[in-house]
């Protein structure tokens, strides 16, 4: 490997800028790090050059460990966005600078200088004052200067960012041509997708300090593995469903799609549909084609040879929020491309899938919200869960402001060490706890939120109210209403998670709850007790009345044994609640019901009651009816 980056981590204060980044760039490769501003890509480049020192991790250049070396000793050529051509020198002096420092003879320097000037397309300009050149020419000088002493790698930090579009395209072509000539290992950083696609042999996508995905441009676009790559590059709709018996099923949609091997039963399925994957027609498609249904054209725009058509379908499918175009409560909105000449009716347009792509299930990850005080049971439970589920843990501290942030960060880090959770990456945010926890979950795609009963900053000041005390603060209420992933409220001291009690309330969301329970119980080896609160009784509480399905089905198909099954039919909440709590269990799982894609979860009074009086951890699972 020409450039080898291993587990590099860098913090600026409490801010995590690089998070365990690992990357290998092959000799002669042109690798592009692509990401939005603030994603850490420039810091990564500076770490390779030695201009920034990493907190952890190793950098090797041409199989030599350079982690502790100064930039002067690394032999890299660096090109900056602002050119940084030395102003008081001529073009020639700029290029020869590195050779002069290495005591190369005058004639050799001149030979090399002229060669490089030819290479970058500025022949005969050696005696020009560098600052008299245009921006594009200055950047060419900077590239020649960086290549003069034959560095092992060429590093470019947004090299075309300050240039106008036309010059940028020219210079991009020149760079590619130079690279094809010299075959020097090159690492380039940009936020410009087009630039990355045009230049790169391979692209690495960065987001919030992490290297999310690496691949050739076409691969990343057509067959991304991660949700981030799917939504960052190009547009497209991501439907969320689940895997069941070798097929992916989607709420609100008729079809089932076959998918590859190795999908976990009950796990989420993310289906990426690009505009060019959709077939739009006035006539219904032949039978057997997976059709989304019929919808109305709500917008059209000219895009050269193709026309972009936006169609709204009256389907309440579950759509990931990062989808483009976004879908609202009115239904599923998709973009399709079709030839400009084609004519479509405004209504009753058939939308059929021509191609589709499943995203990889994201690595299991847990998000623990910590207050920096109180019992450390949530951290300890998260540690056990992470071990059992083979998941990564991120610990989140929410501070009131930046000043409080560092102090809180130190306190939480101490608690992490005490709880044996040092491996968990600590992140800090400021603002309202519930919102920040939800934002962090959405960005990290964590599959579970773990927190203590009083996660709000001000919960401390709430006096005792009823007996038994109501332990759930505003933060938890907001999370229950808005979270799209299970929320584990760790009540009471830590103990081992051996028995799981799953409480179904009528049939509402039972299937989703049982799928979630199975995914937890199987890897952790938990024994499951199924508690079915009678539909007759629960109807008093939330008005549900429907025939009870074969509720144990997902558990059995996932291979989880049910230890016992109980049915509770009580007159009131108190009786029901104490009935649930009588069951031997270390963890109680209850459902909250989500309706549309945007709506808040419906929290049954029984769930609130259980949370208020429980003496053990409660897992709240948002599921759909």
């Amino acid at each position, binding site marked *: 490997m020409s450039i080898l980056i291993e587990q590099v981590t860098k913090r600026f204060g409490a801010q995590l800028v690089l998070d365990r980044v690992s990357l290998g760039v092959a000799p002669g490769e042109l690798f592009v790090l692509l990401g939005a501003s603030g994603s850490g890509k420039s810091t990564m480049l500076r770490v390779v050059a030695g201009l920034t020192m990493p907190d952890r991790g190793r950098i090797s250049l041409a199989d030599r460990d350079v982690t502790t070396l100064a930039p002067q000793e690394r032999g890299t050529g660096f090109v*900056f966005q602002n050119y940084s051509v030395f102003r008081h020198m001529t073009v020639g002096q700029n290029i020869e600078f590195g050779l002069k420092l*290495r005591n190369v003879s005058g004639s050799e320097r001149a030979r090399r200088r002229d060669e490089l000037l030819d290479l970058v397309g500025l022949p005969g300009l050696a005696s020009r004052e560098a600052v008299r050149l245009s921006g594009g020419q200055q950047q060419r000088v900077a590239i020649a200067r960086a290549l003069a002493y034959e560095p092992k790698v060429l590093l470019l930090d947004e090299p075309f960012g300050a240039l106008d579009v036309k010059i940028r395209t020219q210079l991009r072509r020149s760079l590619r041509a130079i690279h094809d000539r010299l075959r020097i290992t090159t690492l380039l950083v940009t936020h410009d997708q087009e630039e990355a696609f045009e230049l790169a042999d391979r692209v690495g996508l960065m987001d919030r300090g992490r290297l999310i995905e690496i691949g050739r441009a076409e691969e990343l676009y057509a067959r991304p593995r991660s949700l981030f790559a799917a939504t960052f590059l190009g547009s497209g709709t991501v439907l969320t469903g689940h895997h069941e018996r070798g097929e992916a099923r989607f709420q609100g949609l008729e079809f089932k799609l076959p998918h590859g091997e190795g999908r976990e039963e009950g796990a989420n399925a993310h289906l990426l549909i690009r505009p060019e994957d959709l077939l739009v027609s006035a006539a219904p498609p032949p039978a057997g084609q997976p059709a989304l249904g019929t919808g109305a054209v709500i917008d059209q725009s000219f895009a*050269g040879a193709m026309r972009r058509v936006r169609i709204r379908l009256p389907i309440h499918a579950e759509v990931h929020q990062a989808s483009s175009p976004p879908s609202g409560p009115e239904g599923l909105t998709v973009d399709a491309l079709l030839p400009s000449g084609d004519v479509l009716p405004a209504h009753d347009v058939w939308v059929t899938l021509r191609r589709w792509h499943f995203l990889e299930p994201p690595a299991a990850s847990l998000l623990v919200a910590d207050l920096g005080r109180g019992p450390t049971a949530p951290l300890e439970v998260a540690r056990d869960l992470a071990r059992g589920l083979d998941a990564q843990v991120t610990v989140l501290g929410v501070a009131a402001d930046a000043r409080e942030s560092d102090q809180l960060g130190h306190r939480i880090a101490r608690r992490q060490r005490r709880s044996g959770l040092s491996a968990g990456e600590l992140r800090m945010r400021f603002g309202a706890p519930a919102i920040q926890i939800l934002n962090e979950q959405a960005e990290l795609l964590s599959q579970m939120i773990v927190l203590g009963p009083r996660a709000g900053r001000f919960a401390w000041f709430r006096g005792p109210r009823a007996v038994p005390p109501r332990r759930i603060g505003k933060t938890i209420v907001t999370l229950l209403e808005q979270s799209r992933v299970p929320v584990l409220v760790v009540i009471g001291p830590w103990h081992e998670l051996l028995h799981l009690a799953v409480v179904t309330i009528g049939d509402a969301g039972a299937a989703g709850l049982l799928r979630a329970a199975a995914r937890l119980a199987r890897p952790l080896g938990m024994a499951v007790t199924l508690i079915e609160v009678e539909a007759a009784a629960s109807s008093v509480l939330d008005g549900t009345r429907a025939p009870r399905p074969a509720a144990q089905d997902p558990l059995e198909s996932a291979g989880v044994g049910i230890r016992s099954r109980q049915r509770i039919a009580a007159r009131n909440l108190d009786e029901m609640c104490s009935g649930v709590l009588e069951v031997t269990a270390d963890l109680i799982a209850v459902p909250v019901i989500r309706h549309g894609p945007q709506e808040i979860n419906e929290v049954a009074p029984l769930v609130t009651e259980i949370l208020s009086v429980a003496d053990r951890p409660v897992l709240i699972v948002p599921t759909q009816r």
Partner: protein
Amino acid sequence: MSAPPPRAPGQESAPGPPPPPAAARVRQFRLPESLGPVTVLVLVLLPLLLMPLAAVFVFAFRGGPEAFVAALATRESQFAMRFSVLIAFATAILNAALGTFAAYVLSKFRFPGRGALNTVVNLPIAIPTVVVGTSLLLLWGPIGLLGSALEPYGLQPMFAPVGVLLAHLFVTFPYMLGSVKPLLDELEITYEEAAATIGASRWQTFWHVTLPALRGSIFTGALLTFAHSLGEFGATVLVSGNLRLRTQTAPLYIFAQFEAGNLAGANAVAAVLATLSFVIFFLLLNLSRRAEKPS
């Protein structure tokens, strides 16, 4: 392939300003609006600045050119002028090095107490020069804190050329710093980083990259220092002891001759000093104009 650029609304329909009627283009004679304020300003400046400056030259040449040359030819005036120029040169060169170094340290390094140090180095601007002279005397004088320690070795910086140099360095220190530091602060770190990746050590970077970028402002600072040193009086009069043919600078000589009633002698040297200052001033003006021009 791409859509045509959006046209600004109303670009075509909005009428431009109507062409001026032919009659309005006939030039009418009117007193320029500026006449009043300019007259007032000149009238104020005349007794305030212009006449005193002229007076120096008028008085210097009142006895004819021979008297002027004779007044400049005395041993004392010759010494005073040479000593002043020498001290100004030494001050400018020493401060160019010291000030640039201070600016570099204050601009490139982050250390505790940096803010305080930044304030302290600019303090000499605010302190009356007489107070500077007094404090130097209290430190280096024969009964001063350090002076008394040096006394047994026969070292006596006060009432000697070294003392004058010390006073001038103190008083002019902020000018160099004020000229170099802003530029250094603005000079982007990427220039130094570029040099570092190319392989230049910290010193090589400073010598080949940073210093050349500062050339202009170092020269400006040195000129400013030179000019201030040439005219420095308050601190010099205290630390020099005003010893003729030993520590007497040109301003001190002028003052001494005035006191002794030798107006011709005083004016001749004053005229030379004024001329020298004019030259430096126009040099500085020229330099700053050139710096302002876009590259």
